[in-house]
């Protein structure tokens, strides 16, 4: 279970602190999926970063199976990112010096969860089997996003956190990539927290919530 309780976060600006999250509460069961929506600047990505342990909240708590994420050391947060979650970003953020094959398995091997059969299955399902020796920049946007999804799921993480995973793709590619993502997530048994602007994509997930004025407004799917 992922539980977020009364989470606050602000950013310093020359004009003083800018509050972005002002008491966010959220719960998500393992294996289920939630779309996090809201206008630009509403704090969707910030919330995702806090859950991923990429940033720290000012106050409030994030609990993973009743264990708090806040107050953990950097090493512990790194371990959480390595072993507990899979991350997918809008800009893919692949490792440019490694080829597709190594990118795909990088995090799983880092976490000591490398399963060659699962990796080969992912590559095949994602249509990357013939591209494993290529470097990221030789792939199209859609192909790069598939590599990012494969990398995130190769270690079968408990949670997949995705930030506008299809934001750089056209509608057709976007649907195709999301279909794949949801199928593979179901096969891996991971829960999904996805930031998106698109109501159409959000509709494909089990739950949806809106961030507005720093607080969450739920909408049941």
């Amino acid at each position, binding site marked *: 279970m992922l539980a977020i309780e009364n989470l606050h976060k602000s950013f310093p600006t020359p004009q003083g602190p800018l509050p972005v999250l002002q008491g966010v509460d959220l719960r998500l069961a393992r294996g289920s999926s939630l779309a996090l929506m809201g206008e630009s600047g509403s704090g969707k990505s910030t919330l995702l970063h806090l859950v991923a342990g*990429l940033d720290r909240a000012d106050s409030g708590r994030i609990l993973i199976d009743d264990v708090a994420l806040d107050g953990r050391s950097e090493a512990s947060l790194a371990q959480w990112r390595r072993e507990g979650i899979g991350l997918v970003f809008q800009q893919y953020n692949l490792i440019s010096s490694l080829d597709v094959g190594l990118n795909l398995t990088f995090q799983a091997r880092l976490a000591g969860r490398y399963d060659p059969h699962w990796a080969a299955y992912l590559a095949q399902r994602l249509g990357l089997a013939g591209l494993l020796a290529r470097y990221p920049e030789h792939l199209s946007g859609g192909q790069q996003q598939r590599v990012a999804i494969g990398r995130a799921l190769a270690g079968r993480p408990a949670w997949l956190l995705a930030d506008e995973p299809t934001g750089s793709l056209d509608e057709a590619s976007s649907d195709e990539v999301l279909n794949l993502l949801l199928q593979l997530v179901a096969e891996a048994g991971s829960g999904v927290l996805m930031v998106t602007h698109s109501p159409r994509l959000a509709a494909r997930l089990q739950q949806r919530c809106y961030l507005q004025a720093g607080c969450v407004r739920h909408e049941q799917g």
Partner: protein
Amino acid sequence: MRLLSLALMALLSHWRRHRVQCLSIFTGLWLATALWTGVQALNSQARSDYARASAVLAGPLQAQLLPRTGERFDQGLYVQLRRLGWAVSPVLEGRLRLPGEPAHSVRLIGIEPLSLSPASSIAGVQLQAFDLQAFIGTPGQAWVGPDTLRQLSANPAQRARDSEGQLLPPLVLQPALAPGVMVVDIGHAQALLHASGQLSRLLLAGAPGPLPADIAPFLELQTQQDDGGLQRLTDSFHLNLTALGLLAFIVGLFIAHAAIGLALEQRRGLIRNLRASGISLKTLLYALLLELGLFAVLGGLAGVASGYALAAWLLPDVAASLRGLYGAQVAGTLSLPAWWWLLGVLVSVFGALLAGLGSVMRAARLPLLALAQPQAWRLAQGPWLRRQALIAGLLLLLALGCGVFGASLPSAFAMLAGLLLAAALLLPGMLDRVLAWLARRCQRPLAQWFVADSRQQLPALSLALMALLLALAASVGVGSMTEGFRKTFVGWLGQRLSADLYVTPRDTAQGLQIVEWLEQQPAASVVLPGWRVDIQLQGWPVQVQGIVDHSVYRTRWPLLEQQPHAWQRLARGQAVMLSEQLARRLKLQLGDNLKLPANTSPALPVVGIYADYGNPKGHVLANAGWLRENWPQATLTGLSVDLAAERVPALKVALQRHFALDDSRVVEQARLKRWSTDVFNRTFAATAALNSLTLGVAGVALFINLLTLGQSRLGQLAPLWALGVRRMQLVWLGLGQTLMLSSLTVLMAIPLGLLLAWCLVAVVNVQAFGWRLPLYVFPVQLLQLAMLGLFTSLLASAWPLWQLARRQPRELLRPFADEA
């Protein structure tokens, strides 16, 4: 014009956000100009002083008359010529010893202003402006330059004393007079030099006719003024400095080149937008060139200022080297005109064009729609590496050609340059190969990333690594050569200076009296008088030393090569021995005959060749009896005395008291060795300093590269952090990458440096000084230099990595953040 200024403004706006890059271009040009200008200032100052020294007596002097044998001739010949209507003016020259530790001397020039041509000038003073009464009267005047005045620690009008206590005429400051020169009336000179009735040369005004028959056997006509061959003798020294300066210049340009290239890569978008906005390619190129010119002028001005400081700092060491090695007097302070320094800015402009023109031209041909991708850059590097390897191959062939067929110092340096540049060009390719090999052997994900990412960084770091390779190889090469020379020199000095006391008599008569006196002293076990005559062989100044037959020479005078019974044949006056440099210059080998320019002397076979380090003149060893027979004017220049160590002080005091000799004329072995070693150490002080500076510049190149790269590497490191690699782990990995690349560079620099050392001792030294040294390898020194190289790169990577370690998570999030 409006479009040009708009384009320029847009281009310059880039530097507001990329200050480090801006600093790197400026630093590159600044350091390159500073080191080059500094070294050239040293050379120019020295050369201008040689010119001033040789032009003490300037005027319509077409020729001069010199003695056919020896250094001086009888004044009667001058009187005879004047009576015959010859417009000649007498000059007496000699070295006047001055008190001090160690003893030093000035070149005393005695002139006779009354007989000089009216259009003559002395040290820039026209004859008409002379106060003749004061100059030739009593007590007369002793003209000196500012540097000599400082050396004497005296003030104008003061009367100094020489080492024998003789009172000099009152000192008069002549600003244009060369350092180490003193001009007096010829009468005073004859008294001070104990050369009554003797002259060194006669200056001739007007076209000379044939010499009268009774004078011709004694004097000969020389059509050019003799500068003592200083320009020629010191050429190799200055060429060495120039080579080091050039190396530092190239290393500095590497920095600028790397930064300019990177700035272009980062401004592709801007250039595309400018062109899309209607700015023509020509206008854009002008703007880029103007921007480059701005950098060049700023870097040049800073470089010239620093070059001045560098030259002023190194000048005392260089002056001491030149004095010790060649007896050349160079001022201890810089006095080059302002325009000379401004020329340094042109050097910077030239450097900027060299470093940046390629990038500007690339901008002209840029496929503007192509995006800059790091991996694409690496892959595009493939053909470039192959081209570099081809150029390196050609350079190696050139180096080989120069090594095999070249027989001059420029060809030796061309060989070194070819070798170094080829190695530098091959470095990125070799590193790429090594990393590719390593990549195949890595299994763990972080290790795979570590190697792959290092490989990806190579194109951006290769210039800095090439600079490090060059600087380290130069350090290893020059260090091995210097240490090897020191080892050889100290061993050689230990053998050659093994007598306990060295005596320099005032003249031959006194020398003979000293020999006689010493032979009566029971304390002195061996007394060896040395006779000398100075001659010229194939236009080269040569000292012929005559020695008596004694067994100690067999141990004291180490021979590099010898024929059987060499010493016995020398003792019989049937053979000569030569210094290594003279043998090379005259292309003589053992068994060849040498004809010395004496009327009666037959050609003698060469039976031995010996090292004579530090002597710029040629040296011939002959039997003393034979020498005096053929050159009656040969002088007894020195005596070496062997005696028990505890008796040295007493004998020295007795000698000084009995013959009124000062400390500079009676020297113990230890003191002489100390002076010689001091000269040696100072000789290489400037070289060592320039070497360290070059290594420092390479360190700066690496630092700036890593810093610039550090800014753009956030995008490469952030995904790893997001995937669960800790920040400190990333810092350590980054450090490891720098250390791995620099270690590989160091590993390649060591054999290259040793090869360079071999070239220096076996090729460059032979061409420059005429002697060949054995090549020694000093493992501890190599280890120290390797550690220094690694430390330099560690230092260079410390700041960028420290910044990474201190980065807030918020900054690392930037590559992922689409909203705040």
